[in-house]
């Protein structure tokens, strides 16, 4: 006979405030095989755990059900408690009567009834629990950081400084990311490149860091501690080991019709190009779609002018494979497309620009060498309008519902340094709210208003028109005075919303990392595990997790690195014993399971099996690699013959739970 102990937690008033815990105890006592049931204020406390231990001793319990909070909170606590008195930790079941009951219900009668039902289901399940034993797996002492912006660079540097090997994977020809494009940084107004490039150099020179630029993630398999990754190093068409980075090729290239990505389309680059002067590596790439040699077979100027003979038109993509213990996602952000904001004139007038374009226009290394001019006329503007929240906090469906968080501060920054350099230029900022929490941030924004005389107008811009001569008219409303405004600025800057990088969704499916409805990576717990993905061994750094500024990004990058270091410092990991298991006797070998397994943990193997008649025959059956299996259960539901079962969550256990409820 089984001896089940049921322990009902009050969680202070969290549970007991809505659930009549004594009634739950009384109800479960009547269930056969329940040898003991009790309630207590805090089951997770030392005293609470002692109650469990004492009851096991006194009543000879062999199975434990704890009715408490989510198993995500304290399952590990109660498993350890069971183990300490000689009960296999997998003989413990949790009935979640807090998040799934007391917190979501108000009526005591209803909540108590539900708590009893949940307890009954857990008791029905625990009857079929079997002792399970975790295995061990090795940890590869190397990390991969995907994305070479400030988030990726900082994470890589911190991991490398701790003594572990780390590779940076960057899709662009250089590391540096968006921060390299920015002119100055708030709230100190120091030059962005001046603080970023030393870090880029540190990363490039670090003995523990390997940088793969112009590279994509091709394939990933494996699991925490043991990821197998294939990286596609795209052909640069330039031999990196011979190239001296002199840049003659980029100057002489005659194909100059491609807008420069780095300069946000404000000038053109050659088909062979180095994005910016401090690029790492300082090796050009040939954009084969723009290159005349690749398009027509004629040209070849770069190869003629190269003093080192580094141009190689026949170079092919290279696939490299590497093993990693941890992967950090630091894929950053981009600005939203403005196609839904035709009313603001972007694309119709060259003098309506994005904030990122303004960064390039004011940057000394930019297309105008830092002279603020209107792109259409090349003349200095006399007045500038900055529009906040273009696509942010927008519930109309055109943009994003979230706040992009960085715009209020950079708008103040832009306004301030325009006024600083061109005191005669009038600057007006239209805003919904000004949100500037952060150290020194509010003071910074106030300085823009009080010391630099920037006009802040609370209200939204409805329309921006451009006449035949290119003169702009901004139609807006001033909510504070209730007036309609009509302004004629020479330049309009749109502070557009940020969104995760395009590849975020694709990477999420390759890594089985979760994303939210906006394609930002989801953290394992929004408060307590903010730099970990729910997928073990995958960590998050920077904007790819949500909008944040540089100081926050750098902090999170360090936090992600600390988590990676904590993982790589371990020699072995305990594996989850709740893995899939195949009943080879009835497995038909259709291998549907191998197709649905996200971890590549199942393979078809031809082997001799005992048939249902007791005879032996050779046939293909599914075999699970327990080290790879993450226990997701996809195979068990795909298997038509139910020969695949998930240990700890067997079909029998799940149906017993359902039966107890219905």
């Amino acid at each position, binding site marked *: 006979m089984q001896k089940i102990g049921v322990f009902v937690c009050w969680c202070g008033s969290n549970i007991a405030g809505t659930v009549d815990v004594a009634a739950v105890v009384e109800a479960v006592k009547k269930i056969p095989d329940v040898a003991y049931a009790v309630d207590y204020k805090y089951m997770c406390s030392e005293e609470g755990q002692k109650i469990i231990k004492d009851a096991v001793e006194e009543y000879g319990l062999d199975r434990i059900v704890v009715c408490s909070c989510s198993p995500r909170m304290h399952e590990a606590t109660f498993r350890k408690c069971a183990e300490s008195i000689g009960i296999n930790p997998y003989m413990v079941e949790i009935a979640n009567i807090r998040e799934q009951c007391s917190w979501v219900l108000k009526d005591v009668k209803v909540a108590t009834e539900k708590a009893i039902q949940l307890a009954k289901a857990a008791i029905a399940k625990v009857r079929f629990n079997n002792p399970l034993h975790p295995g061990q797996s090795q940890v590869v002492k190397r990390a991969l950081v995907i994305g070479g912006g400030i988030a990726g660079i900082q994470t890589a540097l911190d991991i490398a400084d701790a003594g572990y090997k780390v590779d940076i994977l960057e899709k662009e020809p250089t590391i540096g990311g968006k921060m390299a494009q920015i002119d100055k940084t708030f709230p100190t107004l120091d030059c962005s490149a001046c603080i970023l490039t030393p870090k880029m150099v540190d990363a490039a020179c670090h003995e523990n860091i390997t940088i793969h630029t112009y590279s994509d993630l091709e394939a990933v398999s494996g699991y925490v501690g043991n990821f197998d990754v294939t990286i596609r190093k795209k052909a640069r068409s330039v031999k990196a080991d011979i190239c001296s980075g002199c840049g003659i090729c980029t100057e002489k290239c005659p194909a100059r019709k491609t807008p420069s990505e780095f300069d946000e389309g404000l000038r053109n680059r050659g088909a062979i190009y180095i994005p910016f002067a401090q690029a790492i590596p300082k090796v050009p790439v040939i954009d084969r779609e723009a290159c005349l040699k690749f398009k027509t077979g004629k040209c070849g100027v770069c190869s003629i002018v190269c003093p080192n003979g580094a141009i190689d038109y026949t170079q092919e993509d290279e696939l490299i494979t590497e093993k990693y213990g941890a992967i950090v996602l630091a894929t950053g952000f981009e600005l939203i497309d403005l196609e839904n904001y035709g009313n603001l004139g972007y694309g119709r007038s060259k003098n309506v620009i994005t904030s990122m374009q303004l960064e390039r226009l004011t940057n000394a290394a930019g297309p105008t060498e830092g002279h603020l001019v209107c792109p259409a006329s090349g003349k200095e503007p006399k007045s500038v309008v900055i529009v906040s929240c273009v696509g942010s906090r927008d519930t109309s469906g055109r943009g994003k519902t979230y706040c992009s968080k960085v715009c209020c501060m950079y708008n103040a920054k832009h306004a301030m340094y325009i006024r600083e350099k061109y005191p005669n230029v009038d600057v007006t900022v239209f805003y919904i709210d000004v949100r500037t929490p952060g150290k020194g941030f509010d003071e910074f924004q106030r300085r823009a208003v009080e010391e630099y005389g920037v006009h802040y107008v609370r209200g939204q811009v409805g329309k921006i028109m451009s006449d035949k001569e290119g003169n702009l008219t901004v139609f807006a409303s001033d909510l504070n005075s209730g007036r309609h405004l009509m302004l004629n600025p020479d330049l309009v800057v749109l502070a557009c919303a940020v969104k995760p990088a395009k590849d975020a969704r*694709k990477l999420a499916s390759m890594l089985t990392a979760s994303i939210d409805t906006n394609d930002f990576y989801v953290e394992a717990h929004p408060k307590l595990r903010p730099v970990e993905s729910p997928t073990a061994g995958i960590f998050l750094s920077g904007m790819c997790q949500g909008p944040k500024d540089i100081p926050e990004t750098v902090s999170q990058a360090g936090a992600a690195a600390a988590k990676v270091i904590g993982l790589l410092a371990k020699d072995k990991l305990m594996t989850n014993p709740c893995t899939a298991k195949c009943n080879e006797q009835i*497995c*038909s*070998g259709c291998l549907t399971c191998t*197709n649905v397994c996200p971890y590549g943990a199942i393979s078809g193997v031809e082997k001799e099996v005992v048939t249902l008649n007791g005879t032996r025959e050779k046939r293909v059956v599914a075999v699970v690699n327990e080290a790879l299996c993450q226990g997701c259960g996809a195979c068990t539901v795909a298997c*038509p*013959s139910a020969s695949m079962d998930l240990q700890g969550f067997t*079909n029998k256990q799940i*149906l017993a739970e359902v039966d107890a409820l219905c």
Partner: protein
Amino acid sequence: MQKIAELMRAKAVELLQSSKAERVLAWRAGEFFYDNAPAAFNDVDACQEIVYNEFCPANLAKYLIEATKQQKKTVVFLKPCDTYGVNQLLKDHRIKREYFYAVGTPCSGMLDVKKIKELGAKAITQITCEDNKVIVETPYGTKEFAKEEVLLDKCMMCKGNEYKIADEELGEKLEPIQFVGDRFAAVKAIEAMSAEERFAFWQEELSKCIRCNACRDICPACSCEQCIFDNQEAPVGGKAAADDVEEQLFHLIRAYHVAGRCVGCGECARVCPQGVKLGLLNLKFIKDINQFYGAYQAGEDATTPSPLVSYKENDPEAEEAVQRRG
């Protein structure tokens, strides 16, 4: 058809005599000339009993599972539509290519004797086909029907005269049945019903089931070592027998199990002694798969995985799928 039967007998004898195969799978005459049944022929003499006419609808593909288990090289005669089931069994690793020799056998549509009888032909002595006419001899006189009136339902959805797998083809290909109209018309009619109407419809249909398992036995996608409904250890089997309502779920669960693997051969509905419209469930899945993942025909080849068990980046999200379904 008589000529094809002769070619079959000759081919069977040739392959057995040349030791290319140990066994032949074909059709044998039943009590009447219109109830031919699948049969195995183990020697040259037996092969003289092989028959072939417009009443050989059964797909022999599934018998190849046994051939593979016995590791006996087997000759199998396959009509064009039968080849889809063979490919599906290969894909499911239930049969092995080295244990069968596939002979493509021409077909111009199989006839439904039930339909002929329902149209008033009694004590049938002979049926012959001429072009699109079916001439039925009875002691009470000769009756003539248009072919499409008396074709099997499954032949109304003819997939064409191409063999998707064959080691050789017998004679010339015959004209396939030209299907006109919407293959999914019946499914659409059910989709258009209200939830209550639909429930009543299926309640009515599925309550006819006597659980003879004929649909399961004939189905080339239902090829498990042990069906989940026969597995005492699996909780589903026991539940399915618990009461009438759950028993009716047998067909729904079966439809889910073969979804993406069902080749749409229509054999389940053909063999059902109770006339349950089983093919409709499978057709609904086929329609949805085509709609959500692009046209897919299970059994077209032996390698392409079903869209239901393979992931493509442009697969619709669940939300999108619900919206598209309307």
